[in-house]
């Protein structure tokens, strides 16, 4: 296949991924709508206090796995379970399409396929879905499915409609192995932080009463976990960026807008972790800090690339 054909195939895979994510979202939504209503207080915690039988797997992030000693609403109708499973299958197929889009794009351009904003956003959407599916393998976080699917579909849609860049070579400054290190780390971190951000929004939406969403405490735990993973990665991405800047621009830190905003984002997430660890912040306040940090992350991605020009203006959006 020629490079042009591969690039076209990649574009088709993006469209396929969007469609699959949207259908998966509908399925996940049905799962939530017909699923069981849960109480507002944390169940996982009280479950964890139960004596653990030898060898039994204990209470997990969410109450579904393991502990059943908590009073819950009657079994959800079958429809919900079927819809939930269908959602997961569709999400996995969408994930494969998304991966295929990235791989074919990479083959078409003969380099790492994250050299401009279009490719970067496609990759972050992929990373966010990956983070969700990987978490789902170990803990039941199906409730997140619909929201992650919307986010990923929006990301891909935005990428194709607004940031689209035809397949092609990158400028010499980007032609470096550092792109594999720096940008990959940023993508993985951003994917995880997106997951945390989506969970944070759900936290604010969910009241303390009965709801189809898991308890606030459980939502908070999911978000915290994701950030704990993402933060060192983000730090690494920033440092790798500095190392690259040292090779490419002649200084490792120069307060370029992108540098400024990744620093701000870093500080905001550090503040969140700090607030949780030392001040014992919980709940709404911690979630708001997290979402402010997520806002900085998004601004760094979208705002800085589009509205501010600096050395990092490789985004290639006109």
């Amino acid at each position, binding site marked *: 296949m020629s490079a042009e054909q591969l690039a076209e195939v990649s574009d088709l895979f993006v469209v396929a991924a969007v469609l699959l994510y949207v259908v998966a979202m509908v399925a996940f939504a049905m799962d939530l709508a017909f699923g069981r209503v849960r109480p507002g207080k944390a169940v*996982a915690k009280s479950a*964890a*206090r139960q*004596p*653990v*039988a*030898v*060898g*039994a*797997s*204990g*209470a*997990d992030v969410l109450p579904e796995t393991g502990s059943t000693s908590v009073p819950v609403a009657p079994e959800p109708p079958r429809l919900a379970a079927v819809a939930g499973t269908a959602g997961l299958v569709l999400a996995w197929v969408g994930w494969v399409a998304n991966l295929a889009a990235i791989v074919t794009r990479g083959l078409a351009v003969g380099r790492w396929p994250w050299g401009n904003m279009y490719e970067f956003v496609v990759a972050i959407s992929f990373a966010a879905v990956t983070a969700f599916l990987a978490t789902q393998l170990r803990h039941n976080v199906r409730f997140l499915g619909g929201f992650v699917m919307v986010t990923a579909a929006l990301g891909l849609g935005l990428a194709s409609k607004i940031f689209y860049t*035809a397949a*092609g*070579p990158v*400028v*010499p*400054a980007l*032609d*470096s192995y*550092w792109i594999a290190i720096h940008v990959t780390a940023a993508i993985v971190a951003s994917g995880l932080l997106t997951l945390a951000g989506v969970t944070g929004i759900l936290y604010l939406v969910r009241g303390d009463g009965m709801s189809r969403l898991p308890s606030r405490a459980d939502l908070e*735990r999911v978000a*915290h*976990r994701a950030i*704990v993973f993402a*933060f*060192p990665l983000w*730090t*690494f991405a920033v*440092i790798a960026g*500095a*190392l690259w800047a*040292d*090779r*490419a*621009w*002649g*200084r*490792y830190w120069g*307060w*370029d*807008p992108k540098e*400024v*905003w990744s*620093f*701000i984002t870093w*500080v*905001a997430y*550090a*503040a969140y*972790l*700090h607030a*949780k*660890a*030392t*001040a*014992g912040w919980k709940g709404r306040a911690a979630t708001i800090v997290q979402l402010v940090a997520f806002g900085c992350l998004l601004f760094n991605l979208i705002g800085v690339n589009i509205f*501010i020009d*600096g050395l990092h203006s490789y985004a290639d959006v006109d």
Partner: protein
Amino acid sequence: MSVQELAKKQAPQQAALGPVGWLRWTWRTLTSMKTALILLFLLALGSVPGSLVPQRGVDPDKVARLYEQNPTLAEWYDRFQLFEVFTSVWFAAVYLLLFTSLIGCIIPRTAVYLREVRRKPPAAPKRLSRLPHSASFEGELSVEEAARRLRKMRFRVVTGDGWISAEKGYLRETGNLVFHVALLGILLAIGSGSLFGYRGNVLVVEGDGFANTVAAYDRFMPGNQVSAESLEPFSFTLDKFDVAYQVTGDKRGQALDYTAHLKVNDSPQAPARDYALKVNEPLEINGTQTYLIGNGYAPLFRVTDGEGQVAFEGAVPCLIEEKATMTSGCVVKVPDAKPGQLGFLLQFLPTSVPLVDGRYASAFPGELNPEVQVLGAFTGDLGMRSGEPQSVYTLAEPEDMKKLKPLLMGDDVPKPLAVGQSVQLPDGLGKLEFTGVKQWITLQTAYDPGRVPALVSAAAAVVAIAASLMIRRRRVFVRVGEGRVDVGGLTRTEGSAAGFTEEFAEIVQVLSAGDKDVR
């Protein structure tokens, strides 16, 4: 005990404070965690205007434009040093306070750390079933055997009469302390870089050389502690500059690769060596790096004056007007021409093509059909003898410009000149000849002794923060006797109870494995 609690305990009493008391209070406040965080926030917040307002050091033209467009706003920006945020007094103040605060918190934290690391796990509580994680099983297990198995799992163990208390995850505190020390290291490295380092920019045309001296730079930005003699004494000549362009598809005309072929002398005595300077591959000589940061065209001209003398001959670096096609603007000033000084405004078109309206434009950034369009030729006083510094990219100051007499302008200008062609000036005032094309590159030379320490500190910070985030402090207690073993466990870290469940089950399994040691 968290540092906050510690701080609370040591908080000054409300009694009247003497000067010493005030000093202590100030120091405590400054070095408290809250203050450090607020300062860190301020540093982040302070850098926001630096990303939104144009910075003098980065984009002086934009600053000048803002002064023209909105002088009142610009005045206000200037009053708050918003055009140079990162070298402003207030930014430095925040930075220094944070620095002090970090030092002030590392010292007491080290003491806390040493105590914490040496601390033995506390005695086991009476009723282990009250702990967040607990289990019991039937069986005989001696205290020694339980201790042995826990030690094997790398727990720190204390035993008593019928009980074992074990703890692990001490690296968490180590990570935390190292992280804060490393942060200090980064700040120090940046500081030393700006004191002992320098940066310089220079434009070099093909065939020309450069020697690393202060005078050779077009722009030189030294740190406070840099002397002219401290510059690394290397030199080089630019033999040739190559650019590869994409020639097909949507991205036609995009640069793919830049290579500057240099002949480098690492020191005046050293033999010359070849070096291919590329983007992302700086030339490094003893810690001084030279980077390729820009390129353009320098067409060659020969100007013969009215008296038949060659009054100018050489390469003229042109400013890029349009990056995509490398259409460039050039100025040729000939102060030595007689009877009158001559000046030319020219446009260089690397790949010249005629447009439908009879004008010409460049269609490609590469040099496929290089031509020079004369936009104007003037005679009169160029104002070059005034002693004022002159830009090589403008013909004359606006007021001087009005006094010049146009020789060729508007409809008089000839069609673009190809290499070897020339244009005669009216009234026998001379002739301009386009004799060839060279390229120029701009280089940045940077010396920053803080780069490696900054990297080492940053790497240490990452590893340490990862350790302090990933590692949990966890305690396991065991009580044995009467054919029953009770096990209890807890983590001392927020948000990690879920992950500990599995580990706890595993520990219980190891302890209950009877005679056959599962590990």
